[in-house]
């Protein structure tokens, strides 16, 4: 296994997207099989490639002339998260989408989105990043509108307008950086910027980047598209959007820019922390009042993204202001771990909501009730996911939240620790509400005949539930050294990373 296999992460989904759109028209089974095989092979490949580090120059052109793809710990972690979640989502799609007509188009768009996300994670070139970002975004605009009903079209249009404004700002910032440094390769840009200190031009570029990626990541105050767009998509797509898309297009890119290109300083880290705290609190308080199940979950995505940004920002702040490196690492470890955990439990929650919606035909909590006896498996998986997101031990969400809270305490930011705990408590309350109204209470007359989800849907939910329960083990010994610590080290390496990339490239 070595770096020459890297192009497969984009080639497989792109090729499969073409084939499935072309051949899937003739047979639905063929479309299902092609989609699932493509994502399964990607997931296996991602896990097999976990030890690979290095730089891959496309077409053999060394940087700064050609485009480079660079792989470090964070890239590997994101690749595994993206591809494993997309595999479970395709498993779920096969029976769930039986009621839609254009299955081949669905898989085509789905795989395009996966290709875009893998590309965003792998690339070490700014303009290449923009291209992959747009591939993933455009595919997701179309997928949100997939049902072609009133709400879906409206949500998709809103998402498209905000998303395009975000993309344009990102392109403008890339143009500014190119004008300032004459490079597009991230490593070269970071070296060139490091040599000259901050100027008004780079500050402007940073502001555009933060707003652009903030829109993509749906951080408060750039969030209004998310609670419309995520619930409107078909359930497996909601799982992908909330589970991995906002993270790869928003959080990952933001962290990459902050740490490895500009080099994080106190102010930048404080901005990240402020965005994180704002998203956390605003998201959770808007979530708790919702009665639409998927909308409630969507608001929780905003809130949980706040945790991730807070963890990463706090880590950067501690390191930049000369605090103890151990505390900074703990905060970043918590943030990055929470990102992986959120992918597992939020995807699972959206898949559960899809199973409920398909069985009952509604997702209004007030119209549901007593589903526990009719859908025991959905109830069990949904309980696990709810406990994970609320941070109840021993599920995965508990460990990452604990790390963030501990880091807040050790850094002396007691206020932040208190806010984190409060948000966690409100999250618990809102998921108790979900459990109470969906699974407990009396079964309405209308829902007497409700049946458990089909086999493949159940299988993908069980798979994610196992992940939610078992991911706490990643903190133990060898697993932590193999998976999480390299990811944080890649961020901590900061500007040094660019030097390594240039030294090994070509």
């Amino acid at each position, binding site marked *: 296994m070595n770096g020459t296999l890297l192009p497969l992460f984009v080639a497989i989904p792109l090729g499969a997207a073409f084939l499935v759109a072309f051949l899937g028209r003739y047979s639905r089974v063929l479309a299902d099989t092609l989609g699932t095989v493509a994502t399964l092979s990607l997931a296996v490949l991602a896990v097999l490639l976990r030890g690979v580090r290095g730089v891959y120059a496309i077409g053999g052109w060394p940087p700064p002339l050609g485009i480079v793809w660079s792989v470090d710990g964070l890239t590997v972690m994101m690749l595994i998260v993206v591809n494993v979640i997309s595999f479970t989502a395709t498993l779920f799609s096969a029976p769930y989408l039986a009621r839609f007509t254009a299955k081949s188009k669905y898989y085509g768009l789905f795989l395009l989105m996966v290709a875009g996300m893998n590309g965003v994670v792998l690339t070490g070139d700014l303009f290449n990043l923009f291209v992959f970002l747009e591939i993933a975004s455009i595919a997701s605009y179309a997928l949100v509108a997939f049902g072609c009903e009133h709400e879906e*079209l409206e949500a998709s249009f809103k998402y498209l307008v905000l998303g395009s404004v975000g993309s*344009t700002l990102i*392109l403008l910032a890339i143009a500014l950086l190119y*004008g300032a440094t004459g490079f597009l390769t991230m490593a070269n840009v970071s070296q060139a910027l490091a040599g000259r200190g901050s100027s008004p031009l780079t500050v402007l570029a940073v502001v555009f980047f933060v707003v652009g990626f903030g829109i993509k990541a749906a951080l408060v105050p750039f969030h209004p598209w998310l609670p419309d767009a995520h619930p409107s998509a078909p359930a497996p797509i909601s799982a992908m959007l909330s589970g991995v898309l906002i993270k790869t297009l928003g959080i990952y890119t933001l962290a990459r820019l902050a740490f490895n290109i500009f080099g994080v300083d106190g102010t930048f880290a404080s901005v990240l922390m402020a965005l994180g705290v704002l998203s956390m609190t605003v998201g959770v308080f808007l979530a708790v009042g919702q009665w639409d199940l998927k909308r409630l979950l969507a608001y929780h995505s905003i809130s949980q993204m706040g945790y991730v940004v807070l963890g990463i920002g706090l880590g950067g702040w501690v390191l930049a202001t000369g605090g103890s490196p151990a505390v900074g690492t703990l905060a970043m470890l918590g943030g990055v771990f929470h990102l992986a955990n959120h992918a597992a439990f939020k995807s699972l929650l959206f898949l559960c909501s899809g199973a409920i919606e398909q069985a009952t035909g509604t997702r209004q909590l007030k119209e549901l009730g007593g589903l526990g006896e009719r859908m025991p498996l959905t109830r069990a998986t949904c309980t696990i996911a709810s406990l994970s997101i609320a941070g109840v031990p021993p599920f995965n969400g508990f460990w990452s939240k604990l790390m963030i809270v501990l880091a807040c305490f050790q850094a002396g930011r007691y206020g932040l620790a208190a806010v984190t705990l409060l948000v966690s408590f409100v999250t618990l309350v809102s998921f108790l509400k979900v459990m109470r109204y969906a699974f407990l209470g009396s079964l309405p007359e209308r829902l007497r005949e409700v049946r458990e989800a089909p086999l493949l849907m159940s299988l993908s939910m069980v798979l994610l539930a196992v992940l939610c329960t078992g991911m706490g083990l990643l903190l133990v010994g060898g697993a932590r050294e193999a998976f999480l610590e390299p990811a944080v080290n890649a961020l901590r390496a900061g500007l040094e990373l660019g030097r390594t990339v240039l030294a090994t490239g070509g």
Partner: protein
Amino acid sequence: MVYILCFVLFLVGLYCVLTKKNIVKIVIGLGIMEYAVNLFLVLLGYRRGGGAPIREPGGDPLEFLATAVDPLPQALVLTSIVIGLGVTALAIALCVRLYEKYGTFDVTEIRRLKG
């Protein structure tokens, strides 16, 4: 100076997106923003009196370096125009579907989602 004009064009587009009620006009606003950025990129590579970045056989490399414009932004702009085409096509398709469903292009009347 000319960069500032680009930025003004960008703001015109943003103003259009933010204030117009007709969804087709919003799409046009997005297009204006995008072209402002494209223009900015091309201008970054431009030099007064520069020639096309094609080196003729036997030409003097130093003279080529001294006169050619930067070709990289042109390649970027081509890519970005194609991406913009995709976004605009999708946006217009959505507008058509929205009109079929709601019978209007007015954003203030297309609002079933709230909360």
